[in-house]
């Protein structure tokens, strides 16, 4: 695999190396769409929220989560810690629009976020 760094943030819950397919979930409609799909391999969710009840909905079925906003005390971090789900927040340098669902993503212990660029 050819891992390329695409951004970084604060690894605020369960820091460690995590790898999985990426799924971009931006907005409530995207949550519903994602939940309608049958469950495959758990994904690393990339989102732009850090608060609100929707955070629990996302984290419950995520392998890990990356938010472009938020800090160490954000609701998303508290919920992720409670579910023992790895969570990076404040990844403002990451552009969710440039990500394709299903691409392999890797979260590194130091908060670096990488994707696999085949070939």
């Amino acid at each position, binding site marked *: 695999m050819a891992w390329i760094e695409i951004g970084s943030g604060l690894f605020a819950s369960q820091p460690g190396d995590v790898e999985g397919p990426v799924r971009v979930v931006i907005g409530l409609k995207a949550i519903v769409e994602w*939940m309608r799909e049958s469950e495959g391999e758990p994904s690393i969710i990339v989102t732009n929220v850090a608060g609100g*009840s929707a955070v629990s909905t996302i984290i419950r079925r995520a392998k890990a989560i990356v938010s472009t906003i938020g800090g160490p005390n954000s609701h998303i971090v508290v919920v992720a810690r409670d579910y023992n789900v790895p969570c990076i927040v404040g990844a403002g340098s990451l552009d969710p629009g440039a990500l394709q669902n299903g691409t392999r993503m890797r979260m590194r212990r130091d908060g670096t976020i990488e994707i696999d660029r085949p070939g």
Partner: protein
Amino acid sequence: MDAQELSPGALRLLRLVTFAGAVRDAQELVGFQGDFASSIAVLQVGGLVETDPVIAPTDAGIETLESWYAADRRHLREEDKSRFLGRFQPLDREVKRLASLWQEAVSRDDWDKRLQAVEELSALHAKAVALIAEFAPVLPRFVEFSQRLALAHEKVLDGETEFFVAVRCDSYHTIWFQFHEDLLRLLQREREPE
């Protein structure tokens, strides 16, 4: 369907489902007290939620909820909105800090820090209850949050410490975030950047 036609239970359920975005079942809706089956049936018949394969608000449901908030909002003066939010936001930051402090104390098995977090929660709770009581004449609906927060606080003091932060129960943190979400929708405000 007009929001005024809904029972308090059905309206509460519509709010919680909309806040969550989508849920698979009643277990995922922390804080809902009432007859889930009959409330969801009313919402489904009224076209306000879909239930297959997940429970989610329809566009009509979102619209109905927004019109309900709009009616609620009409009673509020701009100065009341700003004053309430100005007092709420420091408490909100404090709840987040205490939730992290508690989780850190538990993960490190640090009993001094646990005690400190509970003491600080009690101080914060007194301020939260006072704020809600002060604004009860213009925001009477929020008294319900005060009652739920008091119950969670009491449980923490009684040693049921999962009621501090845990996501799967009606913990102080869970209730606070529903309160926060309700407030932001009512006041049509965005979350503070963190």
